[in-house]
């Protein structure tokens, strides 16, 4: 029995920091599941057009406000997934045209069928999509989450919006990370006046209500900017605030490490400053940075979504979660098409998953603690 104890202890003492973090992280089941969910999200980001069923930009007045369709897996006891076709009915009271499923017409779902043209991974031109139905009539199609007022398929739009919303979050965190590690590192390594100035700057940024400032900055972006220009500008604006948290983490770690014995030992052994920073200090809080990054992402996503929701962030024809939620802004439109609120689901799931993942990573980042 004592033999196994020894080997377990040896295993721990020989493991690298990342291995230790991973071992501890594996114990957090919720964080692990969240990690998988986030991987799936980013898979959607990569394969967005492949997963979409119809062109997210194509409008068709005839397809306005079609409710979500149910998928039927079996037909006559055989596995043959299909959706029902649609028929228009007039509401006897409001005389508005509504769509209802027509059980008479079964539209089989085909896999890897052809649809609108796109570039897979941004490189390979193709028109193959994961699933679709053969178009039988002008309003027929597969509308997993229904359509909006302009007849655009919500599922496809949501899939494509995921690409923009998650990548803008990632880009924002990337910029924040550079700023945070740089300024936090300088602050923590050099201390003194530089540290005081950076700390005051962080306090200042944190004590300002950010949304009005963002709104001001975002509103002053020229109206004739292209989608791409606005995208980068918004990324910069949201990362202006996000870096402060990361900088605090990095600074705190540097401060704590400066007095650690193993750093002193490295200094006494004559290691150069650069070697100490990159070989000894950075690896020992690499996992903290990952955790802080994961916790910073939800704030980025919320910021982008909020700004776009207000109409000050990304602008159509760009599609993001915030832009989709703009359609769901009033009770009137929600009463008419409650499925528009579906756009809220990925926002909430993604933010939850990033929070859980970040929490699990943060706990795991202190493997000796």
């Amino acid at each position, binding site marked *: 029995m004592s033999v196994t104890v020894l080997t377990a202890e040896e295993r721990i003492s020989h493991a690298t920091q990342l291995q230790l973090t991973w071992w501890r992280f594996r114990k957090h089941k919720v964080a692990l599941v969240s990690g998988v969910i986030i991987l799936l999200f980013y898979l959607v980001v990569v394969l967005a057009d492949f997963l979409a069923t119809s062109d997210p930009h194509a409008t068709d007045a005839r397809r306005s406000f079609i409710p979500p369709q149910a998928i039927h897996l079996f037909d006559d006891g055989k596995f043959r997934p299909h959706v029902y076709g649609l028929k228009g009915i007039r509401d006897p009271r409001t005389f508005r045209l509504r769509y209802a499923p027509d059980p008479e017409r079964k539209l089989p779902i085909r896999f890897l069928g052809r649809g609108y043209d796109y570039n897979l991974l941004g490189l390979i031109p193709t028109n193959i999509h994961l699933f679709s139905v053969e178009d039988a009539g002008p309003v027929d199609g597969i509308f997993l989450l229904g359509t909006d007022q302009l007849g655009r398929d919500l599922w496809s739009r949501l899939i494509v919006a995921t690409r923009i919303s998650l990548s803008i979050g990632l880009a924002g965190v990337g910029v924040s990370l550079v700023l945070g590690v740089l300024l936090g590192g300088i602050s923590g390594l050099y201390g003194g006046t530089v540290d005081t100035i950076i700390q005051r700057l962080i*306090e200042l940024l944190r004590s*300002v*209500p950010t949304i*009005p400032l963002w709104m001001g900055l975002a*509103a*002053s972006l020229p109206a004739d900017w292209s989608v791409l220009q606005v995208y980068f500008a918004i990324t910069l604006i949201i990362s202006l605030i996000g870096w402060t948290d990361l900088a605090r983490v990095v600074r705190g770690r540097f401060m704590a490490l400066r007095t650690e014995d193993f750093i002193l030992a490295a200094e006494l052994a004559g290691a150069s400053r650069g070697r100490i920073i990159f070989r000894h200090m950075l690896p020992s809080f690499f996992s903290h940075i990952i955790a802080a990054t994961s916790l910073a992402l939800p704030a980025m996503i919320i910021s982008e979504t909020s700004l776009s*929701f207000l109409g000050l962030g990304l602008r159509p024809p760009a599609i993001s979660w915030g832009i989709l939620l703009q359609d769901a802004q009033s009770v009137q439109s929600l009463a008419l098409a409650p499925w528009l*609120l579906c756009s*809220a689901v990925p926002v909430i799931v993604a933010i*939850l998953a990033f929070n859980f993942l970040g929490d699990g990573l943060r706990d795991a980042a202190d493997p000796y603690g």
Partner: protein
Amino acid sequence: MLAYCLRRLALALVTIWSISVLTFIIIQLPPGDFADAYIAQLSSSGSTVSLDEVASLREMYGLGQPMHVQYFKWLSRMVVGDFGYSMEWRRPVVDVIGDRLWLTLAISVAALIVTWGLALPIGIYSAVRQYSAGDYLFTLVGFIGLAVPNFLLALILMYLGYTMFGLSVGGLFSPEFEQAPWSWAKFLDLLTHMILPTIVLATAGTAYLIRIMRANLLDELRMPYVVTARAKGLPEWRVIMKYPVRVALNPFASSVGYIFPHIVSGSIIISLVLALPTVGPLLLRALVAQDMFLAGTIVLLLGVLTVIGTFVSDLLLMWIDPRIRFQIH
């Protein structure tokens, strides 16, 4: 102690000053200057402006002069309460903002109080009864509270209110009170309308503070001084309330400084969803219409109010922690 106060005050003033610079930049960002916009505005409505008038306008705002001159002219007018003129509303900015600023403040402060009032007892409960069913429930609710952006929460609650109760929630006053002068009845009406926005605004902050309180209190509960207090024979609730809770209040009080800006920010967005007569919708409209004096004033005033809120929470922190009072850290 005085030094601490002064340092905080100095920081607050510096913050206000930087907000003013940022605001000025925002005002300056759109192409063209105020006079151009004013002329365009007037001529679009059919009236004409004399060259003299334009010249005096340019003189008054220092247009055409170097940026820092313009900034100081603008700032000195702001300090004496002259916030400029709203082009869209054709009225002084002060009149346009009117009560809206105080309503924004009322909602934000109410949300802050609710945040404190909920987070403190729930945080204590969650830490003391760690891993109990209640703790798990609050942790779960807290996570969801953190994950749902508040405009989305407002949207969902509004939709639920509409479909389940047929209520049209929104606004801060019933129609009969909207134009009425202030009275007790109007105040009560305001209070009932404030419940929903307050809850929406308080959710995220409460969830965040519960986590802070719980984590800190859990750390404190393991400290030796808690054992000492138990060994004294004090009742358990006094042991917890007098010692670890008191210590855990420090990070709690200091995070209020960070919560308040978020609440003020949130009030801007949810005001749009819930159609609240706060400065939120006004700001959005001003920004879209590039009515920059109005927009700038709102940003500046919100910033100043927030800084004051943070300053007050710093004073609270000092009152709680004797170490700050005695300058030992």
